[in-house]
């Protein structure tokens, strides 16, 4: 063995004094496109929605959420792209060089208005934040499809066989109205308020929780969110992380506490204080937003932009707050 090589075996290699950082991320190329007549430059890979938001151009969304994969199902974010046969969903369509986008053309406003009318005529949107304003902004008139049909008995809609339905007489407009499902202590499922945005399925699945307790079942107007064979949640794979509630845009999924307070008429959002804190349970350090009404925690969420949670929590952070309300502030209660 030559002496040049021998030192490799006798001396450890010199340590770098600097902790290597991640390789530099190349700045994405910019793409130029036209939005509503003005030239815009955005990073390649952005969606039309990203590009619009960067320019403060308002695009309504329902099924879109920053922390979930876009499913572009609600179609309320459609925009017109020159040369395209149909409108395109801004939430998922990536920008292309030279694209000419119209976000408020007559065609765009028409489809958005119809989407809102179709939803509002078939779904109870009374607890969906921001939707009333959207209906106003687009001049939507859901009543023109006729009076709402009476609600279906519990479970009836879920039982419809795909490809079969009873033809309506047209006198009333079919809806998804049905009784609220209350099968556990933590949250309720009011599918009369479900717009089928797929967000809860995504949050339960690969986008957050990887529990896969729920999926879309049925087809067409009878499509609905369900566990296998409509099994009640306590017998399903649900782990009560409540991330489905966190992403629900209409209040179809709701803390049982909120549901009961609303029923009792005591829910008062204006009187609620929101306080951010760190979850006390484990060492992960999730940011919690406590919604406090009259000194009592009534709901727990997490900010979408919280770096650890991205809005998602576990069962303890989400629901494990009731001890705060029992027993007062000292440990000696009842002891």
């Amino acid at each position, binding site marked *: 063995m030559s002496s040049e090589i021998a030192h490799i075996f006798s001396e450890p290699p010199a340590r770098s004094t600097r902790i290597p950082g991640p390789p530099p991320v190349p700045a994405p190329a910019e793409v130029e496109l036209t939005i509503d007549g003005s030239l815009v430059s955005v990073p390649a890979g952005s969606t039309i929605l990203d590009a619009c938001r960067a320019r403060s151009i308002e695009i309504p969304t329902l099924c879109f959420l920053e922390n979930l994969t876009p499913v572009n199902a609600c179609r309320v974010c459609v925009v017109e792209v020159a040369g395209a046969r149909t409108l395109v969903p801004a939430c998922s369509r990536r920008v292309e060089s030279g694209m000419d986008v119209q976000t408020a053309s007559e065609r765009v406003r028409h489809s958005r208005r*119809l989407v809102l009318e*179709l939803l509002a005529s*078939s779904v109870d949107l009374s607890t969906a934040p921001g939707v009333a304003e959207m209906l106003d902004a687009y001049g939507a008139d859901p009543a023109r499809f006729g009076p709402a049909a009476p609600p279906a008995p519990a479970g009836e809609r879920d039982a419809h066989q*795909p490809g079969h339905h009873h033809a309506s007489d*047209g006198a009333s407009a079919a809806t998804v109205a049905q009784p609220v499902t209350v099968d556990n202590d933590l949250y309720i499922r009011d599918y009369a308020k479900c717009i*089928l945005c797929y967000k809860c399925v995504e949050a339960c699945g690969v986008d957050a929780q990887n529990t896969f307790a729920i999926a879309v079942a049925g*087809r067409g107007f009878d499509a609905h969110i369900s566990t296998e064979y409509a099994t009640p949640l306590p017998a399903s794979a649900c782990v009560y992380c409540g991330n489905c509630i966190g992403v629900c845009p209409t209040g179809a999924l709701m803390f049982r506490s909120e549901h009961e307070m609303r029923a009792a008429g005591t829910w008062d959002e204006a009187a609620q204080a929101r306080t951010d804190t760190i979850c006390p349970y484990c060492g992960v350090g999730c940011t919690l937003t406590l919604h406090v009404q009259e000194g009592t925690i009534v709901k727990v969420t997490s900010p979408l932009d919280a770096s650890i949670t991205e809005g998602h929590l576990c069962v303890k952070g989400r629901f494990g707050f009731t001890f705060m309300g029992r027993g007062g502030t000292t440990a000696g209660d009842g002891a």
Partner: protein
Amino acid sequence: MDLVTLAPRATPDERTAVDVVLGAPAGRWDGGERADPEGGHTSSGGHAARERRHLLLPVLHAIQARVGWISRPALEYACRRLSIPPADAYGVARFYGLFSTTPRPPIVAHVCDDVVCRLAGAEDVCADLERAVGPAGEPALGGEATWLRSPCLGRCERAPAALFTVAGTLPETIAAAPVDAAGIVRRLERTAAGRRLVPARIDPDPDEERLANVRRSVPQAGRPGLRILHRVGIINPLSLDDYVAAGGYRGLRRAIEVGREAVIAEVTASGLLGRGGAAFPTGRKWAAVAAQPGQPHYTVCNADESEPGTFKDRVLMEEDPYAIVEAMTIEGLATGSSRGFLYIRAEYPLSAARMAHALAIAREAGYLGTDILGSGQMFEIEIRRGAGAYVCGEETALFNSIEGKRGEPRNKPPFPVESGLFGRPTAVNNIETLVNIPGIVADGGAAFAALGTEGSRGPKLFCISGAVPHPGVYEVEFGASLGDLITLAGGVSGGHELRAVLLGGASGVFVGPEALDLQLTFEATRAAGATIGSGVVMVFDDRVDIVATLRRVAAFFRDESCGQCVPCRVGTVRQEELLARLANGRPNGSADDELALLADLGQAMRDASICGLGQTASSAIESAFRAGLVAFPRQAEARA
């Protein structure tokens, strides 16, 4: 919280159904025992187990066929074997019309009540059945049988039609047409008494009867000069020798000889446009897939022919199956893919049987497999069956269905040539498109391009049905007028006036008698605001109830919408309600209000739906109003 015990286990029958498809489990990951009982860890194998998800539909088919419905324990067993969450698989099972997740009698007659069968008296058949065996869906004949209404079964030339499914250890699926209620009841009774439905019908008719039988579906069969249908009725569809003797496999031999680029050049030069409805240039599609870097690429043949009024692909699969095998093989070699999927709708049992037979024989003879005709090239074809979902004819929904998911269309872009089946570059073509391929490759694209018109090259198949004496599949050179086609089928049925024609099926366009001179080419129909679509020419005479027909079309779209996007999911419902009000003479507000509503719905569905189903769901209905075939009564305004 209450203790929840485990659900009951799947029955031996259910487990067998699943295991026949999947084979014995290899270890813990696919539902078996731990592979290494000596304390080995099951740390690997999850990916492999989950990669078999695409077998979910075959497994669900197997359970449905053996047991008659898919119980929760059966589904959970299938889920354990395939490593799929039960809720997810339940969503899939609940998507397809031919799967049932509630108990259902083993014998089912699916009776077509769609547009053409209605003209042939399907409503009477249903009414008679209701009297004879009870309401649709209710168990009858001692719980052994039931009947259900069905959308178009693709046998419009012999309407009315029915599909019989018999669950058991020897399951059967048979399509029959024409049928009447007495015949259906007789079959149900005989089957309930334990008899086989009919002998397995893969066997072709005896040679001397073949042509006469085929002519009931293809009246031109046997005539000289046909280019697409020239073997139909002439050759024995089981015989590879017959196929080769009739010029078969010349195309594949030439393809191997000249190589990939030359094949694509010929197809491009032919000017062949896709025959499935979208009329995309086939050569351009193939070139795009071939140019995609990275492997694998896939070849998919769309035989989910579900457009009401369409039955040409069925006839081709039943009577000329090797042509499809040859064409797919050429396509595979040309686009650099070694694996093809042939997706056939479940309502075509004979097509599936004949294709499976042709695949086996072709493989044995070296036309498929690892060394095709000694070229060292490889291609294999697998048949996948739909399960009762029109939307799966949409190419991206079809991919999802093959992948074992709900048949929900994907947003495009990305297009299939970049990201198709399993997210890989995929060439997907319709049966009729493909059947043109061997001839184009063997004889050159120029010969094909010399036929037809400037914008529509080659020959074309049309499915003529309804009020004509000789409905069936007809081949013409592009350029024939609508009137020419109706004349070919014998004109309007005796003594009646032509009222309307539905071009392109349920997603097509109604035209009135003034359109008889319309040239049925892509360019002329487009200019006239009509469509060829999949080649449907549905003829209605003066006896037709147009409003009832429109309501059936609207009901079809409401049933077949996948439910993913709002404009289609709710729009199809509102459209059907509007037509009900038209039928009842009780409009909401004035006639103009209703017409505005229809136009608004149509525009939003066309503009904002994800896929072609929603985009065309109002097409036929709006066109009927445009053509003046139907109108809201003006006097109703006074009442409103």
